[in-house]
């Protein structure tokens, strides 16, 4: 048996190298020895078990099967099924590791296989040199294909500015100061959220008017000082400070996520804020387990629908509250096992001491009822306050209850990439769905706010830049 081991340091962050290598069919794009390649049976190229069928430029034909893929460990393992080369029992592993000292990547490529007696040296050289070492250099070149890093030049930007605190009429499209920062983005789709309304009204004092608003968007990198992004990359974000309602935006690289091919810009802009909110609520603030009884308020709202869909997939029993029969039907269709229709925050009658976890975006007006509904040792997660801020909380010792007051940006501060990745995978696997209901031109942001506040809509509103 021959064992081949080669390793190299690639001058790019591990996420960027992995984004290429995890795609089992990408080798024809970057490896100079590989000619045409396709994945058999139209399977996705990251589906374990898929087969890549390709020609080497020297005419040899190889079929290889993906045996293991780990986004967590940056490992891909594959074997040769058949080849016109005399290699048997070939199993190879690609392993990447993060070099924390300088945002680089350690790449280890290793395989074992058998060849006819006497040809061991020849094949050790062919695989180790001709395939692996050539591959290291070629991928490094491929990743630098964007040329030298482009220093962001100041460019014109237009954006929607809150000219004061007040109604939708305070929103006006204006020429903005030229955006300056690490990564410059030409924005395509911008998410409209209720938090934007609160900021416009001055309830959350996150801006001093006149100032642009908006928390999330997607777009294309135009210039970047960070090695993590290069021009042409599709990116999205949900972060402070406000200012997403704009044609161009400059942000630090740490606030951005690279979009996978299967997530389009509109979906990303629709789902960053609400999707990552659902992600941390169900996986981080509380780790939902099969059989948990969840009480989800505003179950037909943006975050509510995602919570219902995702919690159902996690095996929880989901009970939702909504304000109308129409919304009840929507909640049921999205994974709610039981729906309580109430317009005045009355739900504890049916839920007394039953809820293991309460996802509460309601606030003060529902506090008493929520406390009634909480089970012994239950977890009350207060992540919003639509009816007004909490003045006080009941004495939780009487139920050994736990109270959490989480804020999205305290989670994304350390876990952004992981959280966004989980949301994208959940979308891809059909666990959650992002429905865009209405699109507005950027200049019509005021109309979007009017529609959102009139609750004329379900589903996500977008501004198109």
């Amino acid at each position, binding site marked *: 048996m021959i064992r081949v*081991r*080669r*390793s*190299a*340091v690639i001058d790019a962050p591990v996420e960027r190298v992995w984004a290429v290598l995890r795609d089992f069919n990408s080798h024809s794009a970057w490896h100079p020895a590989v000619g045409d390649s396709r994945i058999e049976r139209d399977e996705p190229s990251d589906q374990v078990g898929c087969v890549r069928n390709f020609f080497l430029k020297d005419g040899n034909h190889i079929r290889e099967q993906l045996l293991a893929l780990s986004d967590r460990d940056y490992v891909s393992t594959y074997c040769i099924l058949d080849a016109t080369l005399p290699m048997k029992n070939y199993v190879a592993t690609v392993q990447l*590791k*993060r*070099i*924390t*000292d*300088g945002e*680089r990547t*350690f790449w*280890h490529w290793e395989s074992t296989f058998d060849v006819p007696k006497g040809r061991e040296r020849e094949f050790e050289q062919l695989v180790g040199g001709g395939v692996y*070492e050539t591959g*290291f250099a070629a991928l490094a070149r491929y990743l630098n294909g964007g040329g030298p890093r482009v220093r962001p030049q100041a460019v014109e930007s237009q954006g929607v500015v809150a000219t004061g605190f007040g109604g939708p009429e305070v929103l006006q499209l204006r020429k903005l100061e030229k955006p300056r920062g690490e990564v410059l983005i030409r924005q395509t789709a911008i998410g409209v959220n209720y938090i934007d309304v609160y900021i416009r009204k001055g309830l959350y004092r996150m801006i001093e008017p006149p100032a642009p608003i908006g928390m999330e968007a997607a777009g294309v990198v135009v210039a970047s000082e960070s090695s993590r992004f290069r021009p042409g990359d599709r990116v999205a974000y949900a972060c402070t400070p406000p200012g997403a309602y704009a044609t161009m935006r400059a942000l630090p690289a740490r606030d951005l996520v690279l979009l996978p091919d299967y997530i389009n810009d509109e979906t990303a802009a629709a789902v960053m804020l609400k999707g990552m909110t659902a992600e941390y609520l169900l996986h981080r603030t509380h780790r939902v387990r099969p059989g948990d009884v969840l009480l989800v308020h505003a179950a037909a709202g943006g975050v509510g629908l995602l919570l219902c869909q995702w919690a159902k997939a996690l095996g929880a029993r989901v009970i939702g509250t909504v304000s109308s029969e129409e919304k009840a039907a929507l909640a049921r269709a999205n994974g709610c096992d039981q729906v309580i229709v109430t317009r005045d925050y009355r739900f504890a009658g049916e839920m007394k001491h039953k809820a293991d976890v309460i996802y509460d975006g309601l606030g003060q007006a529902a506090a008493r009822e929520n406390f009634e509904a909480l089970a012994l040792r239950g977890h009350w997660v207060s992540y919003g306050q639509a009816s007004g801020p909490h003045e006080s909380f009941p004495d939780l010792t009487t139920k050994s209850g736990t109270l959490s007051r989480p804020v999205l940006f305290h989670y994304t501060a350390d876990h952004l990439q992981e959280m966004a990745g989980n949301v994208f995978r959940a979308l891809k696997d059909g666990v959650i769905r992002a429905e865009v209901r209405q699109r507005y031109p950027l200049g019509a942001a005021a109309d979007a706010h009017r529609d959102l506040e009139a609750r004329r809509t379900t589903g996500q509103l977008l501004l198109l830049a």
Partner: protein
Amino acid sequence: MYTSSVIDAPADRVWAQVRDFNGLPKWTPFVAESRIESNMPADKIGCVRNFRLKDGGVIREQLLTLSDYDYQCSYSILESPMGVDNYVATLKLTPVTDGNKTFAEWWAEFDCAPEKERELAHNIGQGVFQAAFDSLKQKLR
């Protein structure tokens, strides 16, 4: 927490430097003196190194594993002024065939008061592990 770096020297040379469990004063910038307790050899599993930091703190660490085959060793903290419990750290070298360099990894797991977590992780990751890597890079240049 996890720290990794690339040292521009073959893995054999780097390993020769770091495998000596009693050798911290020779290659780290922050250890003043070190001895192995009970007169044990420094590569005997279970031996305890007792060393004094230049800032005065005394730390006792026990060697848990040592592999000349994998270029890897791990150890636990028995006593320290840092306020950590169940601290186990591993140092591992991997040859980089392209350029005959060394990929060095050093990671640790421990329990501590939640409010000290961030500060400790930074102090250990940057102040200890990365600082030690940096001095190793200088030394082996």
